[in-house]
């Protein structure tokens, strides 16, 4: 082993049926280093992490750790933890039935006289979260919190384990800027304590902000390891995609024709719509061809609001008009008949249907809209599937692969495809770019703008404000479950948004 390195992986090979996920990959992590692992969706980042931590077995290769004289193999995450590797996986892994405190401490609960000391555990959990500025009741079960909070808790758990190696697989995908900032502070602290950190993300700014080194994977192969300072952004992207790519400048909102919408073009009109205890009544109008963003802090109720619009959640006050017709959806299908589509933020629990194939996952919404007895012919199904695999560049062994064995980003693309296929008039996208690589992300943003141009009304939620500024014409600002403002045109900029979010305080 090189001196100073805590972890070395050499010549790692891993094959899934139909996919060579890792081929001859090397990876070295030094002490006190933040090391970015980069690559497109399906490049093999998560797989590399999984074979390291024993979730998956690798075929050949070796893994060396700082203090071991011979190669180690982790057969389970438990063994990996014993070797000082603590991990936050891409898909959040917490037990929904346990409290926040337990999720933080399970397996290493504070004990007194051999018995779990709940008081101490809750207290320490509270401190830990306060440290990270997360405000959550540690005695509540975890399923009562949004994805973002859960992600913070998963991070808190990993961080608290005082490991030698900390692995974060896309921890920031659903966090907004302030949370990301908190996380970075923490990472820097751990770094100064000598912890080696592997950091997977699709946000280039974040990489350049905290990482010392970058390792790039493409199609399961190692492209190279570089020092951050020596690898310009453009080159990084080129290495990831295998071709030159101008990542950001690509899109700019062209015609921000605010106010130029006619009343006939109203697609959605909410009057005093609300849900007691969650969403305070709000009014909202969305026109044909408009992209409206929802912004706010973590847990401000953005997701909840769009769920109410879609009819995924019962409303108990107010009215909703879709294209002038009153809609009281008892079931999402009624909203779908009116031309709505909704991409939920919780991909794992509300998006993918894990054991179904890519094909079935893609066509299922369209099928549901057509009805039970109008089965799409196999040929049609396959045509649609191929079209979207091509259009969204979904990386999959074939169309019959179960969606659960796709990489996170590719799963997301399938779900986006699912809704596009229904050809909606009103499309709700809650964090559509979560976990999607830079290349495709811009594609998706372009797609949204194109669809809007073609006459679709779109609601777009993202924890990344810049992304929203690029795509949206109007922003709805939420705070504590109520709509506190609407910004458009000139007033739509970062600082204005921030001050609206902060509101009177």
């Amino acid at each position, binding site marked *: 082993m090189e001196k100073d390195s805590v972890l070395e992986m050499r010549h790692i090979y891993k094959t899934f049926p139909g996919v060579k996920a890792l081929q001859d990959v090397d990876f070295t992590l030094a002490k006190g280093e933040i090391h970015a692992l980069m690559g497109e969706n399906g490049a093999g980042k998560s797989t590399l992490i999984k074979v390291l931590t024993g*979730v998956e077995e690798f075929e050949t290769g070796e893994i060396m750790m700082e203090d071991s004289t011979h190669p180690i193999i982790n057969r*389970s*995450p*438990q063994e*990996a*933890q014993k070797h000082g590797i603590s*991990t936050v*996986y891409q898909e959040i*892994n*917490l*037990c*929904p*039935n*346990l409290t926040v405190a*337990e*999720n933080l401490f*399970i*397996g290493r*609960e504070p*004990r007194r006289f*051999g*018995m*779990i000391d*709940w008081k101490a555990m809750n207290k320490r959990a509270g401190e830990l979260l306060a440290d990270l500025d997360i405000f959550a*009741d540690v005695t*509540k*079960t975890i399923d009562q919190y949004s994805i973002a909070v859960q992600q913070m808790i998963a991070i808190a*758990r990993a961080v608290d384990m005082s490991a030698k190696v900390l692995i974060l697989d896309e921890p920031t995908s659903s966090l907004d800027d302030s949370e990301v900032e908190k996380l970075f502070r923490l990472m820097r602290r751990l770094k100064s304590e000598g912890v080696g950190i592997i950091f997977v993300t699709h946000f280039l700014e974040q990489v350049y902000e905290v990482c010392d080194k970058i390792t790039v994977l493409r199609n399961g192969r190692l492209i190279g390891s570089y020092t951050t300072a020596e690898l310009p952004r453009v080159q990084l992207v080129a290495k990831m995609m295998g071709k030159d790519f101008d990542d950001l400048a690509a899109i700019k909102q062209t015609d921000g024709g605010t106010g130029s919408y006619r009343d006939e073009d109203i697609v959605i009109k909410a009057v005093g719509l609300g849900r007691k*205890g969650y969403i305070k009544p709000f009014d909202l109008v969305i026109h044909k061809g408009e992209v409206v963003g929802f912004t706010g802090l973590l847990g401000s109720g953005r997701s909840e609001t769009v769920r109410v619009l879609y009819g995924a959640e019962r409303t108990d006050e107010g009215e909703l008009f879709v294209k002038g017709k009153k809609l009281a959806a008892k079931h999402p299908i009624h909203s779908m008949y009116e031309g709505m589509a909704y991409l939920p933020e919780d991909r794992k629990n509300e998006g993918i249907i894990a054991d179904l194939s890519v094909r079935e996952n893609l066509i299922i919404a369209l099928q549901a809209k057509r009805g039970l007895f109008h089965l799409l012919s196999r040929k049609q199904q396959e045509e649609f599937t191929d079209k979207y695999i091509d259009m969204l560049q979904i990386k999959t062994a074939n169309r019959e692969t179960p969606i659960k064995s796709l990489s996170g980003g590719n799963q997301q693309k399938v779900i986006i495809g699912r809704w596009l296929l229904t050809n909606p008039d009103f499309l709700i996208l809650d964090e559509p770019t979560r976990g999607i690589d830079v290349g495709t992300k811009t594609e998706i943003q372009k797609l949204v703008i194109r669809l809007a141009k073609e006459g679709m009304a779109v609601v777009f939620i993202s924890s990344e404000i810049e992304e929203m500024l690029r795509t949206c014409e109007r922003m709805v600002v939420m705070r504590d479950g109520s709509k506190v403002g609407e910004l458009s045109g000139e007033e739509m900029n970062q600082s204005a948004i921030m001050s609206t979010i902060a509101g009177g305080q």
Partner: protein
Amino acid sequence: MKKKFTLNQTSFLLLITIVLFFVMYAVGCVIFKDQGFAKTQNFLNLFVSNAGLIVIGIGMTVVMITGGIDISVGSFVAMGCMMLAWMMERAGMGAVPSVLIVLLTGVVFGLVQGFLVAYMDIQPFIVTLAGMFFARGMTAIISKDMISISNEMFMGWAKMKIYFPFGGHVNRKGEMIYPYVYPTVVIALLLLAGAFIMLKYTKFGRSIYAVGGNEQSALMMGLNVRRVKLKAYMLDGFLCGVGSILFCLNTLGGFVEQAKGFEMDAIASAVIGGTLLTGGVGNVIGTLFGVLIKATIEAFITFQGTLSSWWTRITIAALLCFFIVLQSVLAMLKKKK
């Protein structure tokens, strides 16, 4: 922020169960007031006659929390009773070694089932269904004929009464009779308390919940999921051993058809008590009340005393249905709020 006292869904379900039990018992006391439903002894009989079920319900609850199920318990009880009867009556063994052997058998049985579930990844329902067939068949292999127990020490345990110093009444012969329980009740309640503490305050206990809540997550959080499951089934096996001994102290013999359908009683008790078959949620206190509710329903039927056989079944089912639906509706109302 003001911290409101809010019950979460699970404790709410438990509370419903407990309240409904007391309401039901009170109703019984009113309806059958002339027939002695309200006697202390009648209440204690709920425990006396169900000590074995309580213990087995605990084991069932534990495996159900891991997301499993054990439908072999009824057959295992039959086998356990038959083993006890055979060892003491046919092989002339003492009561103590016989009891120990049954306990050991329980643990081994649990070990094998647990191994198949945890390490071979076979579905619990199927493993324990095979266990059910196996135990029932073994019972027949040990002896096709029923065996009556007459071992002195064992009979001594069975007949030992623990009297309460109060609440007595005068019987028809004019003697004062105080309410009593058998040691089986004490054992069952002790185990219940032990299981409660184990589930709430030990690492193993919490791991059981974690595994049931989300196996994949539990694994990724670094728990040894397989070992936890194996241990849960072993504990269940041990409790089945104890349960069958308690059962045998009540029925004092072994025969092939014994405890048929007992697994359904245990599962129903656990579920009525708020345990989810999907795992991750459950509480042994709930299971105790589940048992008591079932016992009370049965007591209703017996006190009523005019139902024909088929009406008995239908009435039990109707009461069960009423109870389960009420529970579910209340839980849904609470969720809506």
